């Protein structure tokens, strides 16, 4: 199989699953009053980012996933801040790339459970907090209002505190993802493209159809 095409399909399917979880599952969690942002980042985003990194071992892929997920998030049929969320998601992909830069091909550092838990905490915390900070800077700029640094500084302690829950969730999720990845599940080459494009199409059609019905 063409390696680039396979990677593109991987970016599309994992990015679409990420965007779907942000739009649909996130909105359901929000309605139940749960801390949806922390749960989505700590469970879903971390799973998709780490699993795709281990499966494809291709730096840059998670940045592409963030772009796909962020684009899908713009069409969230259940409202919310479309622009800020899309920017935060794209930033999360970029921040993951920076954190995991040195783990691109070598996962030996995460053989023991202490390091797996620690990387779960670090990754989930920094991805969540980093995305939050980036959107606080970029949203006013993209909106044309202008960025006021003092607005960010006074709110920084709350942003840093908000990363605690996703960090703690990540401590449990990352070791679990690593266990799943060790199962060495393989999909037949003949089924790879139908499966990846099928799942991606489902995510986009589900979100866009709800958006046309309720959001547009």
């Amino acid at each position, binding site marked *: 199989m063409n390696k680039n095409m396979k990677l593109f399909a991987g970016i599309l399917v994992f990015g679409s699953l990420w965007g779907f979880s942000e739009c649909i599952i996130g909105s359901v969690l929000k309605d139940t009053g749960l801390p949806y942002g922390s749960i989505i980042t700590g469970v879903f985003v971390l799973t998709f980012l780490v699993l795709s990194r281990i499966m494809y071992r291709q730096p840059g892929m998670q940045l592409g996933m963030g772009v796909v997920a962020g684009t899908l998030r713009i069409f969230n049929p259940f409202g919310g801040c479309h622009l800020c969320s899309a920017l935060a998601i794209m930033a999360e992909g970029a921040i993951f790339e920076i954190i995991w830069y040195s783990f691109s091909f070598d996962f030996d550092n995460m053989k023991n459970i202490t390091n797996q838990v620690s990387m779960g905490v670090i990754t989930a915390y920094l991805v969540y907090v980093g995305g939050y900070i980036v959107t606080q800077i970029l949203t006013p700029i993209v*909106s044309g209002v202008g960025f006021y640094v003092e607005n960010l500084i006074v709110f920084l302690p709350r942003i840093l505190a908000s990363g605690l829950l996703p960090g703690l969730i990540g401590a449990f999720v990352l070791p679990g993802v690593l266990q799943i990845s060790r199962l060495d599940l393989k999909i037949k080459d003949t089924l790879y493209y139908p499966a990846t494009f099928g799942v991606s199409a489902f995510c986009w059609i589900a979100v866009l159809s709800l958006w046309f019905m309720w959001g547009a």
Partner: protein
Amino acid sequence: MGKEKLIPVFAIAVLLIGCFSALYVNAIEVDSKTIEINNTEYTINQIFSLANMRTIITDEGEKTGVALDDLIIKTGSVCSSCNAYTFKSKDGYQQTVTWDYLEKGVLTQENRIYFSDSAHSFWVKDIVEIEVG
């Protein structure tokens, strides 16, 4: 020290930053039933009796409340050299907008501001202060 040994240290540092930030945020949170505008405290009822009402259309439907530009005028907070109006929430969140935004913004009875065509991050809730600068 190898990278392998630094990972848990970074994780503990990250958790400590989160914990201390949470404690700090809890300590400084303001629980005010009034809104300070131009160094004067107003209750939400006083504000609603003071300024004109306005209804705007947002992507979450109609929002009705006190017209923000009229509120600034009626509270005597207008200054010709000012064009930055900062809305501060009780949890420390704050956003700054220009006069153009005030002309299409409202403060609702639920103490939340809305603008007709802005990102939702500008919809500050639980306002405790409006600063003119």
